């Protein structure tokens, strides 16, 4: 019997949707196959299989580009079982930017999953994410569903992955009321002019975190501009095989944000990492290449900017535990630590809050399994990855876990409940805002 024929699931002719060949991705050539990334990869740690490691996935991409391996659903599965946490980039001695390899490879494949989920994702990524109005309408529907209990009732009729999505969704406390003013003056002397990217999920589910961030920025002397024409950063599109729509969203944001700002700020780590990639994303677009590069060059996570603007840079003093102190542990969002290399600033800000004792978990920078919409698409793996994270949180005995990214916050809240860890999940900006109030 022919093994290869049996090997490919669902490979019947006529069901294929994409036969695009894998392009040559120059970044692949920088991998020397040393394997030092393996044990830092959450999916390798769970499976211990080479195909679920960064080195293995790069080898798949390389083999296809060389024409030695044919595309298949199985290959797509390996490439999409990656969380996109980019811990391998931190581990890689050669500085291979796996995130970029994954984006290009997934773009050749198209969105993940079977026929149905790919169709749904395409609609969501192309026709919902780029449109703030439609997102707000969706939020209203979710809000209505949550208040009336309709969403729970409805969820029983849905396929498993969508049902989980509804379970995971945080309750929307209040619907967006009056849109924020377009320009908010600095409180006190103006020291900088910054533009604020609100994010889509961030502003729908955590609009109070955004409000807190804006207050903190203004108090630090920033005049905050909130451009009306801005759209979602496009991170989900970039990571799920939709580079063309991601590029459209990037161009709209670049057009919407005024030139001459000192910084473009976001309080969502995932958005920040994506916004910092615009220069790369639009490198092949002569009309936007330069503006994209300069836009990305000005993007700052709110923790970076607040740290830089603090009068005397705060220094964390994690060792001196105060008696009454609240023990807090910090969970590095992957796209802040691995994606943007921002680790020290949030810790310094957190450690300087009076009454807070920071106790590090081991390791603090391993993925929680949220990874955008990964926890909906790969629930079993996401739960396994989350388990290790929650045990690390538990071991600290902390009462609060801080993660400045909406996806992580949703996942950690779910994890605290699922694995019975008595811990509150907060965004750093909320804590800073409360401390200064």
């Amino acid at each position: 019997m022919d093994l290869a024929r049996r090997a490919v699931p669902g490979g019947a002719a006529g069901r294929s949707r994409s036969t695009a060949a894998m392009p040559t991705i120059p970044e692949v050539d920088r991998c020397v196959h040393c394997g030092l990334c393996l044990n830092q990869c959450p999916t390798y740690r769970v499976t211990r299989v080479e195909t679920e490691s960064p080195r293995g996935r790069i080898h798949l991409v390389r083999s296809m580009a060389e024409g030695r391996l044919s595309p298949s659903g199985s290959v797509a599965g390996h490439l999409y079982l990656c969380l996109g946490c980019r811990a391998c980039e931190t581990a890689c001695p050669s500085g291979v930017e796996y995130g970029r390899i994954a984006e290009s490879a997934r773009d050749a494949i198209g969105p993940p999953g079977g026929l149905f989920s790919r169709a749904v994702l395409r609609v969501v990524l192309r026709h919902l994410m780029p449109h703030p109005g439609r997102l707000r309408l969706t939020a209203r529907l979710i809000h209505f569903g949550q208040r009336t209990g309709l969403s729970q009732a409805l969820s029983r009729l849905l396929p498993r992955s969508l049902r989980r999505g509804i379970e995971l969704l945080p309750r929307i406390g209040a619907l967006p009321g009056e849109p924020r003013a377009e320009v908010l003056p600095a409180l006190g002397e103006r020291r900088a002019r910054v533009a604020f990217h609100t994010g889509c999920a961030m502003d729908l589910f955590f609009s109070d975190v955004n409000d807190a961030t804006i207050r903190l920025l203004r108090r630090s002397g920033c005049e905050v501009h909130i451009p009306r024409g801005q759209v979602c950063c496009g991170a989900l599109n970039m990571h799920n095989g939709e580079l063309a729509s991601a590029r459209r969203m990037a161009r709209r944001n670049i057009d919407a944000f005024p030139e001459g700002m000192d910084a473009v700020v976001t309080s969502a780590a995932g958005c920040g990492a994506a916004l910092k990639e615009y220069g790369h994303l639009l490198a092949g677009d002569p009309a936007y290449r330069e503006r994209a590069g300069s836009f990305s060059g000005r993007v700052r996570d709110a923790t970076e900017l607040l740290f830089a603007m603090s009068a005397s840079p705060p220094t964390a003093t994690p060792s001196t535990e105060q008696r009454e102190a609240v023990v807090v542990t910090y969970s590095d969002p992957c796209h802040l630590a691995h994606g943007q290399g921002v680790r020290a600033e949030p810790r310094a800000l957190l450690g300087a809050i009076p009454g807070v004792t920071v106790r590090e978990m081991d390791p603090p920078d391993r993925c929680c399994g949220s990874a955008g919409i990964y926890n909906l698409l790969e629930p079993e793996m996401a739960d396994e990855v989350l388990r290790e994270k929650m045990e690390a949180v538990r071991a600290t005995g902390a009462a609060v876990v801080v993660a400045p990214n909406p996806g992580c916050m949703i996942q950690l809240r779910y994890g605290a409940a699922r694995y019975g860890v008595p811990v509150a999940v907060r965004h750093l900006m909320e804590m800073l805002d409360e401390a200064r109030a």
Partner: protein
Amino acid sequence: MNVSALARRLRKTVGDRHVLHRPDDLIVYEQDGIMVNKRPPDLVVLPATTQQVSDVVRIAREAGFPVVARGAGTGLTGGAIAERGGVLVALTRMTRVIEIDTASRTAHVEAGVVNAELTALLAPTGLFFAPDPGSQVAATIGGNIANNAGGPHCLAYGVTSNHVLGLEVVLADGTVVWMGGGAWDAPGYDLPGILSGSEGTLGIVTSAIVRLMVKREAVRTLLAVFDTMEAACEATSAVIAAGVVPEALEIIDGMAMRAVNATLQVGFPEDAEAALIVEVEGLEESMPVLVARLEEICGAHGARRIQTARTGGERLSLWKGRKHAGGALGKLGRHTIMLDLCVPRSRLVEMMQKVTAAGERWGVRIANFFHAGDGNLHPNLIFDFDPESEEFGRVVSTTEEVMRACVEMGGTITGEHGIGLEKREYLGWMYSETDLAAMRRVKSAFDPAGSLNPEKIFPMGRAVHTSAKSPPIADQSGETAWT
């Protein structure tokens, strides 16, 4: 029995999920840490217990397929490449730490336990597992044993075989035996010694009882920067000649330091041609004396800057820089081949001159970072052309010239990476036919049918990198779509 029938039988033993057969699942196992040789196995099996390994070996043997063991696949000589196809047994799922005995300072661990994870686990006890190869963050204990791995600290602590007390081994017919045990002196033949470095050709180690060392009271790590490689090598010889035996004594050259600097900030200079990393351990009181002595010797040999790591973090950072050097070579070129030579320490300078000359003669760039204290060199040949190309001949010529020079100086062609398929043709440079015949008899005693990691270690009379020409992996289904 054909592959499909074999797969069916193996699935019954280890479970469906742990027998891999699709083209994509096999192709990622076609090479290990080596870049230029490839061959996918017919099947990959991931057993979870010694009993399963035993069953897999027995079933494969009955079906007439060779069996190749593999750990994390970080080896540098192609030892874990299933060159003749067959069943690749990946031991990565066997990650249990069965027992840590702090009183007798031993640990019983399964073969798939990652070296650095064992060390991390032991940290609170003040004990550690001494072998520390550059790949330790990923490499498994089983792989360390199979290659008799070294590392910077083997200068003081010895190589892996010095730390193995007992081995649980699956033999070629599937029998499970213990060699040695938990005690320090096992009577009879030193079989753990024979298995160490045997690269899976004599049996498959499934668990091991290893010695643990006690962390010394104090440690100091120095970085001494030199303007020439020659000066760094001479300083090394002088340190040893002065009777100071550091725990580690490493040299890293300018090209490698600049590659590391591109991704890590560990304090390596941008403009120097060589640096020495020296580590000494002992009692706190002895540290100032030792450090002063090292500074004096390095200074006398022209070190332009000498600094001691001020914190534990700085020390770890220096080591991270050193251990990432191999992986950082991707910054310098598309392909690398890392050689692994040992020369008498008195001939370090001379050997390094030969390395440089060979690189210049054949037009191949060479980066160096190595265990200078025990004369274990790692010239890294860096090139951008394909291993299938004509130009690759220059790489092979460089390799051979360097190794020939090393043997002529009384050195060896491999210090700690093993022989695999990359060095086997050169074993005849080291041993006479009679010597090799004695080794072959050991192989025959353990594996008369030659089914365990066949054709490795011994000369085959073939071109060294024949398997570099890798065909497309068979996918007769005609499948070319993503789902």
